[in-house]
């Protein structure tokens, strides 16, 4: 049991703390696995996405324990498994984990693949956060396509950042679902001058382009999916009380005060009304009205 082994060094403690469940989670890591019979195409795809491990002879759709073992060891919650056989040529299984157990898995067949090095263009720097665009009504209508969209967003999204450099929006991944096929294209974005502040976009085909077709799926049951979507209460932003906004944009604040003692109120001091010591002692209900000199 993890809790029983006490880490002996600070470094080990930090390592374990990084992996335990937290309110705000780390960016998801992906592991790319080459199956026992992966061919060149599939390997190239994996290589283009980034790098891969050694051969692993498993069948994810039958047995998920090896995947879960790898996920636990490397603390990766996304995976991409490539394999090839006669029945399912150029197979890519894209999936994600929840609590080190497989949540969703979708098998895609690669029909056409154009690699990064086949397109002779200038590339954008590695690690750019890509813009993601999904075209096609099928992505909303069909449940499997909806999950695939969610999976692809999870995979390609990159770390969540609070702000972004506007000139650095260079990379866009465009997914079109048409006719049972999904076309994935990557373009480099060129910002051209336009009449006004917003630039005109020109695209240049750059990165890997894939023609995918959906094969088998292994989707999580509805309640497990709902459980995984559940966000802890601490993440909800706290409502700011006592602040309200006008239609015109004015901000109003509300301050709650204690009851004031009006006799001790600080008003304008009129020198003429100041009580002289002689008068103070003589004052016995006899009011001596004085004319105030104020304007």
């Amino acid at each position, binding site marked *: 049991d993890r*809790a*029983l082994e006490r880490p002996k060094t600070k470094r080990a403690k930090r390592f374990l703390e990084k992996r335990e*469940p*937290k*309110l705000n*989670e*780390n960016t998801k890591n992906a592991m790319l696995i080459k199956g026992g019979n992966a061919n060149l195409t599939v390997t190239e795809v994996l290589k283009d996405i980034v790098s891969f491990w050694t051969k692993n002879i498993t069948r994810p759709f039958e047995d998920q324990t090896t995947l879960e073992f790898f996920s636990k060891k490397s603390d990766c*919650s996304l995976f991409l498994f490539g394999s090839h056989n006669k029945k399912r040529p150029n197979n890519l299984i894209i999936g*994600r984990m*929840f*609590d*080190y157990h497989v949540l969703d898995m979708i098998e895609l067949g690669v029909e056409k693949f154009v690699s990064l090095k086949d397109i002779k263009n200038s590339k954008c720097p590695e690690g750019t956060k890509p*813009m*993601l*665009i*999904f*075209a096609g*009504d099928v*992505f*909303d209508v069909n449940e499997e396509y909806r999950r695939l969209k*969610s999976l692809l*967003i*999870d995979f390609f*999204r990159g770390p*969540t950042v*609070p*702000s*972004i*450099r*506007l*000139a*650095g*929006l260079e990379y*866009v991944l*465009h997914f*079109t679902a*048409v*006719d049972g096929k999904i*076309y994935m*294209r990557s*373009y480099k*974005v060129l910002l*051209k*001058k*336009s*009449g*006004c502040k*917003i*630039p*005109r*976009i020109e*695209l240049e*085909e750059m990165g890997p382009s894939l023609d995918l077709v959906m094969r088998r799926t292994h989707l999580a049951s509805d309640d497990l*999916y709902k*459980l*995984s*979507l*559940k*966000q*802890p209460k601490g993440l909800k932003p706290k409502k700011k009380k006592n602040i309200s906004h006008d239609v015109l944009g004015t901000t109003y604040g509300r301050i709650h005060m204690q009851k004031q003692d009006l006799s001790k109120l600080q008003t304008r001091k009129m020198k003429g009304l100041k009580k002289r010591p002689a008068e103070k002692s003589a004052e016995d209900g006899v009011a001596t009205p004085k004319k105030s000199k104020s304007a």
Partner: protein
Amino acid sequence: MAAVRVEAVLAAAEEQEAEKRRSITVEKELELEYDLGNLLAVDRNPPPAAALRGAGPRREALLQALARDNTQLLVSRLWELPAERAGGAGGPLVAQLPEPTFRLPREKPPPKPRPPTRWEQFARLKGIRRKKKTSLVWDEQAKEWRRRWGYRRAGGDPSRAWLAEVPAGADPEEDQFARLRREKRERVARNELNRLRNLARAHRAGSAVPAAPLHPTGHQDRDELRRVARVARVSTASLGRFQPRLPKESAEPPSRNSGKKRRFEPLLGNLAAERSRQLELLRDMGSKKPVLDITRAVNKQLRQEEAEAAAANKGKKQSKRGKRGRRQQRPGRSGKKSGARRQPQQKKAAGGGTGAGRRKKA
């Protein structure tokens, strides 16, 4: 004349081209859905399926055109975000991204709050708060700021202490250094034991697997084992009626309703008890005094309400009540005793006043 007109036409055409090139507007049937936090745009318009069916460069060109339009829309939205120049006037233009709205599943389940340890419970009860300690302490000998504990701590390395005083009343022959070492070992062992106990308690509270106590672990205490043995005995087809017993085990058969349901006395049982019960009933019916003591009943009810309110408040805010807090946490005191002590009229008048105030009066 013609030349001028031709030139004019050409100029107009060129201007139109330039206009088109610079245009940033895109026409779409359905508006796209944007999630700017994720740099995401979703286009619901059905793509031109017929045109895309044909293979080759035409399809690529169409896809690229579609992508260009969508990207233009997304970038327009992104450039409309509030932006500022990072790092002074000459720095790059940086836009503030909103929170991502697209719900993606988490990597791991959210962390469960662990139950408080034994010390934490005690501290909350007594109202003890943590004292913030400085991380560095002034060491007089070394004349500098040193850590409170750890590498190069203030007060020197305890393992190299060369002097150990014999405390008053201790055996003069005893080895003090050995005693210090032994005590430290004992302290560490006790700490570790308590930590494991707290962990076990948290684990037990958290998981609450119903079948877990039925598996022998070797770390169960007597009551748990007794409970488990009873459950095991009753889990037979005849509900434990023919199970052999150990020689010293009590030979009572389990009552038919040993649960939370209403239990009834056997029909033909204790005649004397039945007789006395009936006579008592007759006596109560005949007497003029009411059987229900209103004052006691009211006090008991009020006490119960107070206890509930205190429990609810304790959950919400943990104030350092100290003794008062401790008193409020023992609501189970019998209502009859304290009820009889007080004046019934006062109690009735006060009604739902604070428990603390009333206790002070009493």
